[in-house]
């Protein structure tokens, strides 16, 4: 066998070995997504929930990790009696984490004169923006619908 043929064969064998030892392709690897909601409009609330739902439908519940971080006016999504609480409960049941910014809670407490009742299924984080940056550093893709 010529040197040229040997070189081609070696490359082919190397690629095949790599492919067989790394069975996960783009469609199979786990995706990590952080969804930001900082707008209190009903349309934006519906949109972010729809995006979370669509991601799980497309990739499969086990193939995508989703966290929704709410801060600013967007925290209204995580008010205890929000009209979307049943949908939120459904997504929590499928592994989605909802994070509520405590700085925003403090600000709303000041504006309202009392602390807003937050959905008990939400996780309170110190600062919503910092949480997003931390997740991004962990490889999460930030999506701002």
């Amino acid at each position, binding site marked *: 066998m010529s040197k040229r043929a040997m070189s081609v064969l070696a490359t082919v064998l190397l690629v095949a070995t790599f492919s067989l030892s790394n069975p996960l392709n783009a469609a199979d690897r786990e995706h990590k997504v952080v969804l930001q909601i900082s707008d*209190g*409009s*009903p*349309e934006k*609330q*519906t*949109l972010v929930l*729809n*995006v979370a739902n*669509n991601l799980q439908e497309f990739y499969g519940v086990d193939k995508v990790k989703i966290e929704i971080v709410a801060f600013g*006016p967007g925290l*209204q*999504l995580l*008010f205890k*009696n*929000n*009209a*979307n609480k049943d949908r939120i409960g459904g997504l929590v049941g499928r592994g989605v984490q909802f994070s509520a910014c405590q700085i925003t809670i403090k600000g*709303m407490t000041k*504006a*309202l004169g009392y602390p*807003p009742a937050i959905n008990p299924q939400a996780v309170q984080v110190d600062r919503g923006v910092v949480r997003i940056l931390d997740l*991004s*550093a962990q490889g999460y*893709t*930030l*999506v*701002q*619908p």
Partner: protein
Amino acid sequence: MKIIKRTALAMACAGAMTVVANTAQAANWLMLQGTEPEGAAKPVNVWGFIQADYQADNSTPRVSNQGLVPPKLIGPNLTSQAAFNVSRARIGVRGIAMPLDDKVNYFLLIEAGNNAANYYSSTSTSTNSSVVKATDASITLNHAPLARVRVGLFKYPGAEEGLQAIQVFDYINFTEVTNQLLLERFPNRSYTSNIADCNPTTTTSCNLNGFDRPVGAFRDVGVQVFGSTMVGEWDASYAAMIGNGNGLNFSDVDAHHDLYLYVSAEKVFGGEGPFREGLKLFAWSQSGKRNFDGDASGAFETYDRDRSGIGMKYLKKPWRFTTEHMTGKGMIWNGPDKPSWALITGGNPDSSDSGLKAKGKGWYVDGGYYIPNTSWQLDLRYDYYSRLDDSLYQLDWKTWTVGAQYHINKKTRVAFNYATRDINAKNFATGAGPNANLDGIKDRYGIQLTAIF
């Protein structure tokens, strides 16, 4: 760090939903019209709708004098038998009174179209015109979810046709039982004798609409306590309201108040808001008193005005089915078979053609079929109304209405209705008594375009 911000793909995949109203659904109208969604409401939500239509009536005038009566004419003007109209042009604003605190809601709606709610005769000029008028102005306090409080001018809890949002109503016109028994006309304060039937298309002095106040429009000014809760799969609701009993007018003209009671239970199949599918059972009552100079003595007497009804509504596409039965006692409007706004003739409250103490009853059955995979829907309704029930002057109103609707988009639709009418004073021969005018009542058809924004 990868950021995907408002991509077209995200928007397309998310399929952002906006709150739209399609056509009549088995919805909880108490909650939809009185409250805002918790945590998901805008401080200011401007909205409205326009309904433009053309209607034509094939009725014939009375043989003896070529006179016409209101059922043969297109309302509210009652000046022709065929007309284009802007039946409703409403703009409103609703929302939460303070951002972040959605316990206080408000609702304001103004009518700038042309219908009996804002078309009437001026007492000073005696000329008819349509005015811009508030039809709703209310505040709701939601601090106790099972005992919410709504105050102001708004729809009282009652019959389905009156309570539901008119912009999603499946027909151009109400049933006769709703139109005559429930949609309250307020007679002019000073007694006036009947107007002889006449032909407004040929006679300049013929004015068959001499009301100096608007119809009640299923509304009152008052205070309502209401609530709704899920009990298993059932959405149970109640409402109790006290009002002036003076419709769209902001004042109380007597010392009496009307009491409105309402209960409903709906087994929810799915969906939400105006799109909700389910089986709804409901019952309601209304009791009040009215002052009226029934004997032309120059002094008011007091008459009862009681109404009640029970019904059900089923919606699970492609089918819809609704039925409701209603009864009434007192202040039965007896005008439309005579060319008069008055409740009685001759100044005798106890006369056999007097509606002051009379009874009325009626019912309707409505069906709808939403043709799958199309934007079309078909509607069919039969309604019966017995006015001055069990009296010499009992009139039986029987109407079939066939309809078709095409949904141009989620907020715009066109409806076509054809109604065949059979109205008869059963205790009189053909052409005698009230039948002299009623015999000529024929079919009516119309086309209406509705755009919600």
